Every structure is written in C-alpha cells, then in structure tokens.
C-alpha cells in the first residue's frame, strides 16, 4: 500500500488543523487527538516499501510514452532518469524511524491530554504539525522539500515552547528563532548552490550527477554547499554551537512537549546526517567533520549536564550529549558503525522522552524543577521513582536495556574502525552520564523532603504512568532483542557504508 506513504504526513497535518479548529471543545479534542495519534505509529507498520511521486510524475524512463513528443535534449540525456516530482522514499529504516516518532508522538499527546484539565487545541496543533514535518523530513528525497519541513518543524518547536507558559519561554523562543533566522537561510543557500551546480534538488539525482561526471565533484561551490548544509544540520539538531539554546528550548517546554521536541532533534540529526553522507561522502574530510562535531557535542553536552540544577536543563544537555554517540556512529562510516549510530538514534528518542516524562511527574506534583528545592519524592511515589531510575539506567547504557546494546555496538565499531580512543571516550562519558543522572535522582527522590516543599497535585495521572511503562517495555524489548531494530537499519547502513 504505497498510498499510505503520503498519509504519514497528511494525517498529522489534518489532525493538527482539526484540533486548531476545535480549540475550545475539550472533549472532542481529546477524542480526535487520541484516535489520530493511535494511527501515527500504525501507518508505517501497514505501509509497503517504495517510492511515492507527488502528482504521479514518474521519471520518463519509467513511462516512455510520456516522452514520445519531447525533444531529444530531454529524452536522450540524463534528464530521462531524473525525478520531476517531489519524491518520498519509504524503506526499512524509515519504517522504524517513523514508527518510533509516531510512538513518541502518541505517548506525548496522550500524556499532555491527561495532565491538563483543559486540553489546548493550539498545543495539540503544534505537536501534530511538528510530527508531520519531521515525518516528511525523514521521508523526502527532495532537499528543498526537506528545507520547507525543517522550517515548519522549527516553527512547531517554537509554538510548543510558547504554549508552555513557563517563565522565560518567550525569551527562549525568540532567541531560538533569531538563530534559526540565520541558520535556516544558510541551509537554503546550501540547497540553492547544489541546485546551481547540479540543476536538481532531488537527492538521488544530485548523487547521480556527481557520480556520473555530469558535474565536477571537486567544484568549490559544492564545498561551500556542504559547509552551509552542515551549518543548518548543527542548528536543526542542536549540536555545538547551538547546544545551549537547544537545551534551553527543552527546558522551557512542558515535559510532553520536550519529549517530542527532542525526538524532532534526533530525527532531524539523522535525516540531514544521512543526506550529508550520501551527497558529500566523496569529500575526505566529511567523515572527520561529523566525528569532530559529534565528539564535541558529547563532551560539551554531558559535562554541562553535570553543572545543571534544573532537571529539564540537565536532561536537555544529556540529550545533546547522546546525539554525539549517534554522530560517532555515522562518522565512523563503516556498516557496523552506521548501524550502531542509527540504533542509538532510535534508542535515544525513546529514552530521552521517557526521562522527560518521568521527571515531568515531579514537575507536575510540585511545580518545581530546581533540584536544590526538591527531595523525598521516593516516599510519595516509589513506582514512579523506579521507572525514572530505569530510564536513567537506560540512558547510561546499563544492561539489559536498549542503549547498552547500541553503545556496545558503537564501541565495537570504533575499535574495528581503528579508533579505539573513541570507544574509551564513549565509556568514560557513559559513566559521567550515569553519575549526572544519579546526582539528580538522589536530589529529587532519595534526599529527605525539604520542609518548605509544597505538593500541588497529589496524584499522577494514570496516562503518564502508562506512557512510562510503554517506554520501559520498548527499552527492554530493544535491549533484549536488538536485531528487531538493527535488521531494519542494516540496508540503509550498508548503502551508506558502501559509499564512505
């Protein structure tokens, strides 16, 4: 069922529009949001692999009757094989990425609907719009289409922050937009330069032009395009120098929103990272740029997380640090390294969402996220404390949870690639991640409750507990049976590992 491919983007957009229309009808919003959110992870499972051409315009080579009246300038050249339509490509890797994005989206929407007394249609709109945009970013084979949805995702992120009503959210949103106002046009300029050199915005066609000598791959314009696209990639995924603003964005969103926004960052990182590898892998330094930036993100993200006293900020920085692991896998350029990196991306999207929602329960009960003012939450909610502890273990890579498998695979891949130093750094940073998490866990759950700590909401909504349990099940299943995920990622990794 290839017709389901565009529906993966259309359904969340329609849902977003409905929710916005029904802004003040609380009950209707809840029902529509839950039904349509349930469809999100189901669509990639039901859809068949393949390509979808918008407008039905297939390449001429696939429909020769179309080209009968066209001049030989078109039918006799490479134009015959080029893709005239915006093309969406749905393969096994996209299946798992879109499924995980849909699952995180479903659980984030589910949590948000039951944590607020009056569900906001606008908040739902932003969440679904962001999901639609990132799904399109994952599916599209057209780099300009990717830019369009990249911008929509940035606007949805800003919307999620604005709706939160957390002190300082407007200031953070504006800072993020100003930086985006520079980074996004740079990404567009990179796309424009690629168009200028190759005459194309379809990624497959750009690669065809580069590989078949239609353009000079050593052209300095292509180098500049690579630099500009990398700049957009850094902004979109929150890598240094944008790590501080990205973690601030996470900290100014509601826990459900932050869980979703970090998934946006992870999948933007993957989508653009894979495109950079596909197009620019012939440049000898492209691999080293990815490795360097990822290493910096790991070190800066995780070390800055130790210094934080705000829970949300701490998870935000940990999330940035974890992105570095994904980048190391991609940067290694080997099949095993890329598989491990992509697996780590899937795991990180789940674990960070788990942590945001887990620590979000503390925020829900107390309205405080400063660890210096918290304590004694273990006595009040031992089950939630256990779930949060397991989420932290998963992030640090404790067996048998999922990140243990992906981090182990990454360390093995780095040793096999002749870079054991990276393996040592990854182990050390995993220990630091564990320490950082345990420090926060001790402050919030184990330390005696401060006398002035006021509990505003006694009971945590069941929906939040269910969401955390689902995340835990995913962490355990992916940890015990990693091949469930890696078998889907292997084909993409093999195709990329072959070109690097």
């Amino acid at each position, binding site marked *: 069922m290839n017709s389901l491919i565009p529906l993966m983007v259309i359904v969340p957009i329609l849902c977003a529009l409905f929710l916005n229309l029904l802004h003040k009808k609380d009950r209707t919003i809840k029902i529509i949001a839950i039904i349509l959110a349930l469809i999100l992870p189901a669509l990639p499972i039901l859809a068949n692999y393949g390509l979808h051409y918008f407008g039905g315009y297939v390449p001429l080579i696939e429909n020769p009757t179309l080209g009968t*009246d*066209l*001049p030989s*300038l*078109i039918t006799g050249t490479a134009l015959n094989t080029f893709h005239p339509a915006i093309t969406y490509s749905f393969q096994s890797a996209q299946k798992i990425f879109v499924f995980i994005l849909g699952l995180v989206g479903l659980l984030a929407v589910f949590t948000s609907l039951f944590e607020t007394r009056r569900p906001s249609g606008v908040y739902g709109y932003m969440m679904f719009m962001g999901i639609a945009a990132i799904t399109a970013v994952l599916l599209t084979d057209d780099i*300009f289409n990717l830019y*369009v949805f990249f*911008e*929509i995702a*940035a*606007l949805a992120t*800003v919307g999620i922050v*604005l709706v939160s009503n957390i002190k300082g959210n*407007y*200031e953070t*949103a*504006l*800072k993020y*937009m*100003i930086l*985006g*106002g*520079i980074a*996004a*046009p740079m990404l*567009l*300029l990179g*796309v*424009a330069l690629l*168009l*200028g050199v190759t*005459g194309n*915005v379809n990624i497959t066609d750009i690669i065809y032009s580069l590989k078949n000598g239609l353009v000079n791959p050593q052209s300095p314009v292509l180098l500049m395009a690579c630099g500009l696209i990398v700049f957009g990639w850094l902004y979109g995924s929150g890598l240094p120098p944008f790590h501080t603003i990205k973690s601030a964005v996470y900290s100014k969103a509601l826990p459900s929103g932050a869980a979703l926004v970090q998934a946006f960052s992870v999948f933007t990182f993957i989508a653009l990272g894979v495109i950079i590898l596909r197009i620019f892998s012939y440049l000898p330094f492209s691999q080293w740029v990815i490795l360097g930036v990822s290493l910096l993100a790991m070190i800066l993200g995780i070390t800055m997380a130790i210094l934080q006293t705000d829970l949300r900020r701490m998870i935000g920085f940990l999330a940035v640090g974890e992105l570095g692991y994904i980048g190391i896998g991609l940067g290694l350029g080997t099949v095993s390294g890329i598989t491990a990196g992509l697996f780590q991306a899937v795991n990180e999207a789940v674990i960070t969402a788990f942590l945001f929602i887990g620590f979000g329960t503390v925020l829900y009960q107390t309205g405080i996220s400063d660890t210096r003012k918290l304590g004694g939450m273990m006595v009040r909610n031992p089950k939630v404390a256990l779930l949060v502890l397991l989420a932290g273990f998963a992030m640090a890579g404790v067996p048998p949870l999922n990140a243990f498998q992906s981090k182990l695979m990454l360390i093995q891949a780095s040793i096999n690639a002749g870079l054991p130093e990276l393996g040592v750094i990854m182990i050390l940073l995993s220990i630091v991640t564990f320490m950082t998490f345990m420090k926060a866990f001790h402050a919030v759950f184990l330390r005696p409750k401060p006398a002035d700590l006021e509990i505003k909401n006694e009971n945590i909504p069941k929906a939040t507990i269910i969401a955390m349990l689902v995340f835990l099940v995913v962490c355990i299943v992916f940890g015990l049976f990693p091949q469930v995920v890696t078998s889907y990622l292997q084909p993409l990794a093999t195709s990329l590992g072959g070109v690097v």
Partner: protein
Amino acid sequence: MIIDTQLASLFTAVALIIIGIFAAAFLDNLIKKVIGLAFIGDGVNLFIVSMGYKAGGIVYIYLPGMAADWFSQNASYPLPFAMVLTSIVIGASTMAVMLGIIIVLYKKHGSLKASEILGD
C-alpha cells in the same frame, strides 16, 4: 560599462546577506535584528532567482505553435522561481511569529533592547 544582470543580482544578494548577518548579530534593537533576518532571507531568495535567470531567455510557458526544441533551449529554468515563492511564504510566517513574540516581550519589559530582554 554595463554590468551583467545576473552577476549584479548575485552581488546584491551577497551584500544583503552580509548586511543582514551584521544587523542580526550586532544591533541591539530587536526590530532591527528582525529586519536583518529579513535581509538574509531576501538575499538568499534573490540569489536563487538570479540562478534561474537566462540572458535573452523567455518565460517558461509553453504556448501552442512553439517548437519543443526551441522552447527547451530558450526558456528560463522554472524550479528556482517555484522554490523562491515557497521560501517567501515561509519567511513571512517566521517573521510574523517573531514580531508577535516581540510585541509580547515589549509589553512585558517595556523595551526593545536585546541586551535587556535576552540577556546577551
């Protein structure tokens, strides 16, 4: 001396981008920063439009009676123009959100100074 139209447009685009980056990075007034960002977006749009320019070319509308070979050799490239239209819409939406946030921040802080509102 007449400067080549395409080259002049490309230079103008680069100038707009540089002025925009300067304004966004160094000017303290939030509205001026936003104007700077608009300059960057406009510069990139002009750059893309300039790439689609074809000296002596015709508009890419295929009319009855035109020879297909002649049309394909003389029509300008339509893709950059389609891209710019989309980009303008995105730019306008982003700008509207930014200005909306600035209005809220102005009401809250009574100032438009980025150093006071954003803290750096």
